[in-house]
């Protein structure tokens, strides 16, 4: 069983993407007499380049000996565990994007700031809570006022 490394994972994922996009590029309108090169040529050239480079990275990574490690599943699990905070921030951001149109800018933004500040700063002292809440509320409102009244941009 081959050990998963950064380079191998990168190359494999990219090769899959190249394959999917190559198939999808079949849907692009074919060349005509007045468009002799067609719209698929440029992306296909890029896909070939990306595919070749990924293959080269894959081959090179296979030539380098790496110490045997646990299986891919185990490695991915460890990777995520080590980066729990990062994953949580991504999730919070996704939630923020999803809630913006539903609850509006002010509520969603205050929610996002309070939650992510609490996650990163911790909530073990009263001082941290004070900083967190003051910052979240004032900043949200200041940005709202600047965009709505200063720049005439309507926020959701």
């Amino acid at each position, binding site marked *: 069983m081959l050990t998963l490394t*950064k*380079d191998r*994972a*990168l190359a494999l994922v*990219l090769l899959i993407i190249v394959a999917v*996009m190559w198939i*999808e*590029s079949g849907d*692009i*309108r074919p060349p005509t007499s007045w*468009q*002799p*090169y067609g*719209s*698929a040529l*440029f*992306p296909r050239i*890029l*896909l070939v*380049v*990306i595919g070749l*480079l*990924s293959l*080269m*990275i894959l081959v*090179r990574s296979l030539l380098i000996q790496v110490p045997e490690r646990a299986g891919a599943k185990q490695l991915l699990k460890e990777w995520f565990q080590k*980066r729990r*905070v*990062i994953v949580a*921030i*991504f999730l919070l*951001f*996704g939630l*923020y*994007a999803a809630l*913006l*149109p539903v609850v509006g*800018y002010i509520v969603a*933004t205050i929610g*996002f*700031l309070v939650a*992510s*500040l609490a996650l*990163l*700063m911790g909530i073990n002292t009263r001082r941290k809570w004070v*900083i967190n809440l003051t*910052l979240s509320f004032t*900043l949200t409102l200041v*940005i709202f006022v*600047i*965009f709505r009244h200063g*720049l*005439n*941009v*309507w*926020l*959701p």
Partner: protein
Amino acid sequence: MTNFFLQALAEVGTPSVLGLIVIGVLFGIVGGSIPGFTVTMAILVVFPFTFAMDPVSGVSLMVGVFVGGYSGGIVSGVMLGIPGTPSSITTVYDGYPMAQKGEPGRALGIGVMASFLGTIISVAVLVFFGPLIASFSMNFRPWEITALIVFALTLVAGLSNGALLKGLLAAALGLLITTVGYDRNSNLRFDFGIPALGSGFEILPVMIGIFAFSQLLGNIEKLKDEGSEAKNIDTNVLIPYGRIMKDMAGQKLNTLRSALIGSLVGALPGTGGTVANFLSYDQAKKFSRHPEEFGKGTPSGIVASEASNSAVAGGAFVPTLALGIPGDLPMAIMMGVLILHGITPGPMMFEQNPVLVGAIYASLLIGAVVMVLCNLLLVRWFAKISLIPQQILVPVVLMLCAIGAYALNNNLFDIWVLFIFGIIGYLLWKAEVPLTPLILGVVLGNNLERQLFRALELNESWLTFLTRPLSALFLALAVASIIFSLYQDRKIQRSKTAAQQENL
């Protein structure tokens, strides 16, 4: 030339635009002085605020951020011993020791003055070479432009931290991103049945996503590894003006040399402030009569570093304005700003928008003056602000990125684009893929495709790219840059294995 410059000066000289330059400089210094925030991030955060402005106001604000940002590294470098941006690493070498010897004010003053002179000299370089290169490149036809873009991409890919394959891969991925949506012939590509993909990805959310998430979350990871300790720093700094003037009087040649190195490095694609300050520091040391003093708190070291990194600002505008090809990340974003305001950077800009070009010159000059005043008067505050912990900074900046992406078109889809490319950027960064070539690819992709096919429509033979002398030259340079970085990679690998064998 003087005519349009005066006209531009009149436009930039209005109170509202001057106010924007001051805000930009202040924000740039703050951004530059917070370690791990970088000039690029400062520009990205300010960018959305320019959407509703007229081009001159928007560009002036952004130029202010540039000038402030490149000088902002001095504060944290001198006071904390941490470079605020990678472009001020060598400032720390001599600025911090000088501050430790009880002269932080002197170190800051020298740095700020060097920054100021560096910016001014680089503007002179820009004013002189910008139009010259632009008028030369007016003769470029689609073949030359195609070849030049290819050369710029391979150069940037090869220069990114000794990983040529991944650099090229990143550039190609960046180009591929631009092929999503309707193309120049109104043919739909890669929409995967999702209607929102039909209009393709906006450059801005893609750039912010790729750059900001990897950078900010990387900062958080670093924090975890190193553990954060609160530093207690005396921010009460006195500036000894007389002493600084005396110091600077002895640094004329060093200032000029460093500023020219900075301008030149800034004008080359793929380099920027980080390379400039190392190169110029090294040169200053070689030319110095007292090289042994470097690293122990000599004014020459601070001057070499700060004059060169500030000069990058002016130099980097040369290829962006004259050729329409940005050399580094901040410039790629600056180009995004210009495009957003309906201006296509390139040789035509000097003819079609001379006032805007003049406004860039004028804001650089005014920005430099404002930068000196702000730094000298408000140094205590900047030192305090630079202590803002990443834990607070990251959520705030992410929120600003989201709002910025949304404000672009009042479109929620752009926030999702930001999010998706945030994840992609973070994962690529984790896989050690350099992100600068990718972002450059995103900025240049549409133009590359347009020029390539215009060339082929004019003459269907691909060989034309090799029979036209200039286009052949650019392609040869592209190949040469690949070979050179292959050679560099080898050398790095060899020294790595040698080091490993020694350890065994």
